[in-house]
């Protein structure tokens, strides 16, 4: 397949990029790693008239910590997160999630913000953002900067709360204290494939009791799914493998997943049941 004809611009500054985007926002697309956009253009499923390449813009990549939150530049490559030695349970989760993104060549090019803006329900980064109530910072030429909470950001399949003249610039996540256990477990047919179902979890345990419980599931709904049933099953309870199994059952009962050629709704529920405990078992002892 060959893409439809399109115009390509590569601005040197964010303001310039926003100005180009503002000219014809509905017919333009922002190009970061091209991980999903380029294949969709080659299949002619996406036919933007203009690509705004943000790869020359400074200060869009990298991580910083301030005010108890980790700020991840939108153009940070997956591989950077896999290889950066960020501390604590959050660092652990980001590294484990990054390893699950595609294959190595994809991770060298695809970006954290690109995945979030693309809003695929099985994407590792969308799951992590949902799990930890990430805040997305976006900017437009007309209205300047605003911040959107994860709960409001992911709206439906490939649809976010961003306007078409906005560029996602950074994403912030709460630093998790050492009382948290975090993890991700996903099921894909082959190494590096899209997950059929993925589970991420973050549980804070104090004196053996669960003081915060977060579970997000991918592949079971149009957008990443926070399992409030699993979370409330754990909150305030004694931490034990049995508790995790109970939470997994609750999550499986709560979801209403789709069916496709990789498995029907029952199968996806089975995967939720299997993966939630594995997400919490992937935590290395050092982080417990």
């Amino acid at each position, binding site marked *: 397949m060959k893409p439809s*004809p399109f115009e390509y611009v590569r601005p040197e500054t964010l303001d310039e990029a926003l100005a180009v985007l503002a000219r014809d926002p509905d017919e333009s697309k922002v190009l970061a790693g091209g991980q999903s956009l380029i294949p969709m253009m080659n299949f*002619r499923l996406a036919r933007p008239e203009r690509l705004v390449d943000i790869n020359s813009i400074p200060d869009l990549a990298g991580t910083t910590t301030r005010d108890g939150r980790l700020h991840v530049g939108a153009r940070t490559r997956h591989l950077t997160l896999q290889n950066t030695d960020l501390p604590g349970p959050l660092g652990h989760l980001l590294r484990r999630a990054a390893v699950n993104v595609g294959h190595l060549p994809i991770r060298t090019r695809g970006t954290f913000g690109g995945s979030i803006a693309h809003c695929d329900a099985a994407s590792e980064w969308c799951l992590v953002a949902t799990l930890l109530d990430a805040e997305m910072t976006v900017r437009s030429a007309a209205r300047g900067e605003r911040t959107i909470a994860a709960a409001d950001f992911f709206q439906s399949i490939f649809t976010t709360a961003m306007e078409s003249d906005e560029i996602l610039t950074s994403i912030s996540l709460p630093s998790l204290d050492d009382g948290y256990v975090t993890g991700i477990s996903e099921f894909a047919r*082959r190494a*590096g494939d899209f997950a059929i179902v993925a589970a991420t979890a973050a549980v804070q345990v104090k004196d053996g009791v669960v003081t915060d419980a977060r579970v997000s599931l991918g592949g079971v709904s149009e957008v990443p799914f926070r399992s409030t049933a699993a979370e409330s099953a754990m909150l305030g309870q004694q931490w034990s493998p049995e508790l995790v199994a109970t939470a997994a059952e609750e999550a499986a009962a709560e979801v209403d997943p789709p069916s496709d*050629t990789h498995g029907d709704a029952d199968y996806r529920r089975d995967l939720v049941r299997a993966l939630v405990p594995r997400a919490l078992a992937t935590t290395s002892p050092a982080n417990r």
Partner: protein
Amino acid sequence: MSGPLSEPETWTGRALPRLEDPAIVRGWGTYVGDVAARDRGCLHARFVRSPHASGRLISITAPAGVTVFTAKDLHDVQPIRAVLHRPDFVAVDTPVLATDRVRFVGEPIAIVIAASESEAEDALDLIEVEIEQLPAVVSTAHAIAPGAPLVHDVEFPGDPNTVVDGRMHTDGFDDAFAGAHRVVSIQVSSARQSAMPLEARAAHAAYDRASGRSTLHATLQMPHVTRTGIADSLGLPEDDLRVVAPDVGGGFGAKMTLAREDVALVWASRRMRRNIAWIETREENFLAAWHSREQVYDVDGAFSADGELLALRGDLVCDVGAYCCYPVTWGVEPLMAMAELPGPYRVREYSVRSRGIITNKCPIAPYRGVSRPMQVLAMERLFDVAADELGIDKVKIRHANLITEFPHRSPSGLVLDAASHQETLAAAVELADLEDFRSRQAAALAQGRYLGIGISCFAERTGYGTPAFAARSRPFTLGTEQAPVITPGFERVILTMDPSGTLTLRIGAAPHGQGLKTTLAQVVCDELGLRPDAIRVIASDTDQTPYGWGSFASRAMVIAGGASMLAAQELAERLRVLAAERLGGLPVDIDLVDGHARVRGSDQPGVAIAVLARDVYHSSHLLPDKGDPALEAVGVYDPSGTFANACHIAEVEVDPLTGRTVITRFLVAEDAGRLINPAIVDGQIHGGIAQGVANALFEELIYDDRGVLVTTSLMDYLPPTVAEMPHIDIVHLETISPASITGAKGVGEGGTIGAPAAIANAISDALKPFQVGVFHIPATPHRVRAAIRSGTDLHVIPLAVPTPEPEKEAQR
């Protein structure tokens, strides 16, 4: 030649690095895409394809300025037609572009020509096609149901939409079946598959105004037969068309069938008097470049109490899609299944019905192994189930039924030559250490982990020539009209030594990744005492090679190898005659070794072969034998076939919660006769097993109930990657059979043939605690999990047969 003791004294038998590889791994290969890219002025073609499984073509409209040709423009082009001479065989025409009907999603309707690939793609968007949709037949059950729509408006001698209906029934079958201790009945099935070569189809048609000749570069396994097919369609003398298959990025059978697109491309190039390229997309390749293996077999085995298979009954159904592939026809799957189902087992009484049934889906064509992966799945699942039901060990029941005496005549009339079925089973079982496995399995189960082991024994019919293909049809005689049946088989080579003493071997076979240029060089050089770098093998160009059938069906090493050996022996004899005269002695006393002819036992240096060669051409008046002033020999070989054999053993671990199968160990005891190049043989086994793993666990083409293919990208159709492949251990046995003059048996398909059954048996063994087994492949995680959850065997879920409704639904 000296070397360590383990090193053979000959070139054959050595794991010689492939002569083809240095260029290919450096990116110096030439593929069709390279030919197109280097031809700066060439036009590009794209095909308008049917979006509907069945319909009446009403109109095709294009805006002014778009170059498009339809069946109307191709009115003087003959349809493609391949037939067998059998009373149950139904023949149809395949138009090069759809005329008034479309019969599958992806069927080519029109060819669009533009200045570049992108412009051709843009032009494709502008073509409007109006199709009146007709009810589609999307399953074999629907196809033969009363009142089903007919895929082709032709006479069917039996059931509707049934184009092959083969039957055999041995005289003693009914008595043997009735008198058996126990009848074990199973149904096995396989999803549709694509051969999915890394390089999709591609072609570049060039037109030379001076000579009026066309040259087609295309990615092919059968260049000569492709030339015949295109010339017949276009009404050209074959000499007006040169067909070249440059480097080919994988074929696996999918590139032996004549492509409608290639015919249309040559036609358009001649019509426009321009060069035109067509590079197929992956999506098109999935839609239209041949499918295979959508088969359901009902098999009953009648056993004695001690596990002897007394009689075998089979009802074999192959969904062959919408058109008949050229040249081997849509009989290829059902007729192979019928002839070869018993495999390596002694089956005295046999009753079989094997059908090819047409549907509104992509046509089938041969894919590595053709029907044998399913035949072996059927037999090996049958023996495992019978062993369980009769309380007999799974290895013992196989030993009790494997053929031991050779040659063996099968109930379908095949003659199996010398092989080592018992020995390969024993060798693989020894490697597997079953006792150790059973203790590991028990220990794992105690921890809630499910391990399994599975065995698969098979005979791989290889290197079969004209007699085998002729047997698919009733005998026919040559008359004044052209014989109607294309009967492949022989190979012919021309071996020439030039004045510098180096060799050129021109072959009709068409290697496309098998390393044949290396292995043929090894065979030839042993006869002539030369080094493999002294020989150039020329293949896959109809201007430069003798007519031949190409590379498919695990045949090239046996048949082209045999022909090359015969040519080399003839040339060697001539060199001995020439040398004997000048060295003294008789030709039989001359050895050809290290590039020299020497009198055996003499310490004289002898004469260089290069000197003999130069003198033949430049001092021909002095030739002692008054023979040709040239060194050239023709070799022809056309054997009836030989059977390689092997035993595969797979160990798996199944995750009961997700249904995922991981292959933890894969063992092969292989007997491919004499190993010409052990590294190449191992490579064939490894690659074959990868495609067997694909068949067993991963790949399936899925149509929805309207006949629309939903798996049209590599996101949905999942070939295993190296991460999913197990380590493979191979042991070789070497049975030298007189059925192959080089001693080599074919080995191109065995891995694909044996692996699915071994894996299905291993998963079934692992799932024994759940009392469910695998009877459908691929055994995908969701199917395995569903079997565990429901406690029912993993079987195919057939599509519902719609109630017949005569009114047509018009759309678009």
